[in-house]
């Protein structure tokens, strides 16, 4: 008796599962994995895309730039998101990967309000992050020890920051590390004398962004390369994209996304850039500005 009930239940459940699959036609999905800095943009764009194209789904997962690069190199996903060039990453065969730069992110040092310092030189910033300068009073601020807070080693934000701030051979001091920009901002906001760095979009009233050599961290200064701490947001495909992947990449670079969504989410549109960079960090002016 009990068995019969059980069997009946199974039948009902199986039929539910089957009907759930049967109704949608022409369903297609791709997966993008990687950089947590790029994730919100791709997610938002993916949702918009799905709303406009029924039955097409863009699955977006985080996991970090390293995950994005290794997964796309292994061919396990359709798109690998990364904050850094594939060429910069060890253990990745970049020759097969096709780079799509969808946006630019500016990164700025942030400090707890009340240190008395709002502008530093690049040399002073180097001094802070290599541990030579340990008190804000050395920079004309209050007598308050400097606490350095880094992102975890290997994070795209940290890689970009150290690439453009520290010079060849300089080593950052062993310091506190945090995994996410949100946590970094919260700790900087609450711990007197702390310095760290986040993408522009994470700066709010709780923290103070520092100017470097008198240049303020603004989108315009990134566009002109006066503010040098910035990086591309890359979406890598394994070989030239086809099908849905290609459609979605075109969509990411369309005016609809570049003009609206990117600015709204705090990224910088790629077409506003007046300069171009390659994986070695060489900068050249963009050849045909609009």
């Amino acid at each position, binding site marked *: 008796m009990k068995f019969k009930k059980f069997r009946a239940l199974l039948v009902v459940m199986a039929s539910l599962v089957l009907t759930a699959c049967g109704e949608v036609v022409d369903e297609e999905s791709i997966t993008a994995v990687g950089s947590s800095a790029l994730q919100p943009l791709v997610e938002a764009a993916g949702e918009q895309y799905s709303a406009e194209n029924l039955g097409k789904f863009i699955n977006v997962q985080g996991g970090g730039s390293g995950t994005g690069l290794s997964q796309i190199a292994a061919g396990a996903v359709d798109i690998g998101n990364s904050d850094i060039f594939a060429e910069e990453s060890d253990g990745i065969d970049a020759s097969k990967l096709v780079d799509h730069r969808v946006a630019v992110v500016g990164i700025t040092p942030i400090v707890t309000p009340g240190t008395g310092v709002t502008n530093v030189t690049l040399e002073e910033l180097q001094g802070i992050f290599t541990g030579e300068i340990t008190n804000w009073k050395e920079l004309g601020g209050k007598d308050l020890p400097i606490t350095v807070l880094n992102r975890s080693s290997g994070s795209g934000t940290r890689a970009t920051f150290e690439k453009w701030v520290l010079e060849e051979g300089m080593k950052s001091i062993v310091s*506190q590390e945090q995994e996410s920009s949100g946590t970094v901002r919260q700790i900087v906001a609450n711990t007197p004398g702390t310095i760290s760095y986040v993408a522009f979009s994470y700066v709010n009233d709780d923290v103070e962004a520092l100017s470097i050599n008198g240049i303020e961290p603004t989108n315009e200064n990134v566009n002109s390369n006066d503010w040098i701490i910035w990086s591309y947001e890359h979406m890598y495909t394994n070989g030239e994209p086809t099908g849905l992947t290609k459609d979605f990449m075109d969509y990411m670079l369309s005016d609809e996304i570049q003009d609206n969504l990117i600015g709204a989410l705090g990224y910088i549109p790629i077409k506003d850039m007046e300069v171009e960079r390659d994986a070695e960090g060489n900068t050249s002016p963009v050849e045909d500005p609009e």
Partner: protein
Amino acid sequence: MEETQSKFMQKSSKRKIEQFGRTISFICIAFIVLIVLSILYFVISKGVSTFTTDGVSVIDFLFGDIWRPGEVGENGEPLVGALPMILGSFFVTLLSALLATPFSIAAAIYMVEISPKAGKKILQPVIELLVGIPSVVYGFIGLTVVVPFIRSIFGGTGFGILSATIVLFVMILPTVTSMAVDALKSVPRHYREASLAMGGTRWQTIYKVVLRAATPGLLTAVVFGMARAFGEALAVQMVIGNAAMVPTDLITPASTLTSILTMSMGNTVMGTLENNVLWSLATILLVMALFFNILTRWIGKKGAMK
């Protein structure tokens, strides 16, 4: 005649159902064992490749105190000393267990021996509630309450082993307490009655008889709490500061195996040294988990009152 015989020779339907159930349970168990074995194999084989593929010596890994994966030292060897994390893990584990044990045992004694009614009505639900709170919530409270509190008392940044110990103390308290309660409850009633009949006071009964008889169970409870503290990642990561330095005191930032592991995993590329060495950290965690497991079994066997 033959018909009757075959009827007895055949399996009855009840027997068949029983066999069917047994097969299913066996398959499930075999599946679980298989999963455990494959996890063990996967983690250990990955973890060992730091030493086999990348040629890091085990001594350098276990006792090196500089953790800069991706960089090489002056002698050309990769800087992957895990000592700061190993020490950090052990410190937070031992300290939080030390702090939690007296509280847990006292609470358990109260719940079992002194006031079972209040224990069941008030303490039990409270403890069950504590178990149900997700670790990220503990971490967040630690970050917004404990860390500033430590900072205001001791100065510095507030991040460090002390903050992690306090957060872990609250997290393992319910585990240890509920297991200690079970241990005390399993002490046979006639032990207590005998003690009381011989003129022992309640305190003497608790102290000399109940606690003694429950010692293996209590130790198991503490070891379980330690295992939980050792493996906790998220909450610790939020309050310890994650600085890969050998801890010199309790209020400077330190790190644990789990905190470095969760922070770095997504940023490394599979198959590189940076990734392999994280698997080596995971192997240490796994070995420690096994060790805790064996320890509880050993305590259960050895410590029983004869």
